[in-house]
């Protein structure tokens, strides 16, 4: 058992100060701006909760919220099982698995704004490697809503699968071999081994995967904007695209109110998630 020692705060303080500067202060500022109408930095008026009422009352906001939630759900439903499957597959290769981990981690080091560009180049009808084939089967990501969805989901999966695989593999490879040997002696099926031995022991790794993937897919901007800027006909208009429009339109008060709302949504999900994990632990 670790001893109780409040001198530990000295060691934690630098981290806390740094986070207060780059996270705490800006967060308070956003909260404050959200209650003001901002023309310039010197011409600011108190408007109370007007912005919040406007945003929450608009159907566009609710529609975008729905789309973002759907996108996150789909991204998690595809990437988490797929990532675990790949990690299990690699686990079978023992120490050679590292040759699989390195390539799947590769998309993680690609600058975010280059990812949509790489994919748009790949499916470009004339010059892309996949372009002619996709054009032949009538794949039209510019003007058909669900095709754009498919493309963004594929690109997002390409981008982030590596993180799921690496973290799931980390959890799986930490399970002592004795557990699997015992299960093999009992004649447990592959599914039973996964369900009762592997899954419970990688929940810590999966929890962080879930949270990171939820937040990043819920707040997807770079890829979605570059691929179709919310189109066609707002079919891929996610929450962040609306925020981006307001910032570009210098509507700072409203943008800040919106940012506050997004932060609160993310916070609520994280809090519920952590509370649920803690409950299972105790």
């Amino acid at each position, binding site marked *: 058992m670790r001893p109780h020692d409040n001198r530990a705060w000295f060691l*934690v303080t630098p981290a806390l100060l740094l986070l207060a500067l780059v996270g705490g202060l800006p967060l308070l500022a956003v909260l404050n701006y959200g209650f003001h109408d901002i023309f310039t930095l010197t011409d600011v008026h108190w408007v109370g909760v007007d912005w919040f009422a406007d945003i929450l009352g608009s159907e566009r906001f609710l529609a975008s919220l729905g789309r973002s939630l759907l996108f996150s759900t789909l991204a998690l439903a595809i990437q988490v099982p797929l990532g675990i499957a790949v990690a299990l597959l690699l686990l079978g290769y023992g120490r050679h698995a590292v040759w699989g981990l*390195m390539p799947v981690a590769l998309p993680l080091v690609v600058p975010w704004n280059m990812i949509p560009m790489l994919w748009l180049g790949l499916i470009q009808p004339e010059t892309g490697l996949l372009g002619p084939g996709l054009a032949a089967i009538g794949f039209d990501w510019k003007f058909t809503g669900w095709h754009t969805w498919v493309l963004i989901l594929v690109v997002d999966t390409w981008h982030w699968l590596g993180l799921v695989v690496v973290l799931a593999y980390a959890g799986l490879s930490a399970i002592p071999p004795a557990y699997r040997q015992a299960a093999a002696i009992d004649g447990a099926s592959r599914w039973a081994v996964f369900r009762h031995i592997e899954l419970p022991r990688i929940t810590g790794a999966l929890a962080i995967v879930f949270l990171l993937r939820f937040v990043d897919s819920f707040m997807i901007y770079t890829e979605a904007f570059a691929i179709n800027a919310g189109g066609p006909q707002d079919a891929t208009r996610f929450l962040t695209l609306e925020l981006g429009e307001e910032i570009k339109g210098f509507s*700072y008060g409203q943008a800040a109110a919106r940012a506050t709302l997004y932060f609160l949504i993310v916070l609520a999900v994280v809090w519920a998630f952590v509370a649920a994990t803690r409950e299972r632990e105790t």
Partner: protein
Amino acid sequence: MMRGLALLALAGFILLPLVQAVILSFTATLPTDTLAKGTIGLMNYRNVLATPDLRAAMLNSAIYVSLNVALCIAVALPAAYALARTRFTGDRHFLMLILVFRVTPPVVLSLPIFILFSRFGLVNSPVGIALVHCLFNLPVAIWILESFIRAVPREFDETAYLDGHSGPSFFLRHLIPQIAPGIGVAAFFCFIFSWVEVVFARILTVTGGKPITMAIQAMFSFQTDIGKVMAMTCLSLLPGVAMIWFVRRHLARGFTLRA
């Protein structure tokens, strides 16, 4: 057999966009007086390296990413040690707090960060970006280092104390060599999250100090030399690929949720 096929399909999926980028980067895509379109060669890479703006952008990115990694490790190490070795009042709240900062979407904070940092004269400077990237990198560094320190038996600390090492000398001479792989993994994750980030990097570089990501963005114009863009993109992948190679044996330690 099935496993082999599945892995092959996965490799195809992962590598296909990168293969196309590499092919294009060696192909002349804008015909010039001396070169026909479609010529294969190193001209795109020569063009990139001959452009001062692009060279400067690579340097800028390298500076703020290194600064960020150094800062994150230096600040995270004591905090991780405290969390791994002791309980203290508010430790779970601290863990919850860093989780909240890790998941705060950058776009939410971009506006006040810009205003705050312009007051301090940190706009257009690599220091500003290095600082703000700590928002999401510091928590990750703390989680990773904490799990590595926890794996070192407590007796190790006590032996070092008996040898008369305490404080900074204990961290530098004993703990850091002991958890070197952990520092490598933490540096890797900090590196990738900082190198690829674009929201803060864009908003904090208005007129100068452009990072590699923004420099690539600026190469798109009415007549884009896509070969040159791809050459720049491939170059921008090299440090990341090198990082993956260096930590390949320890990559599988990953990090888990601590809250």
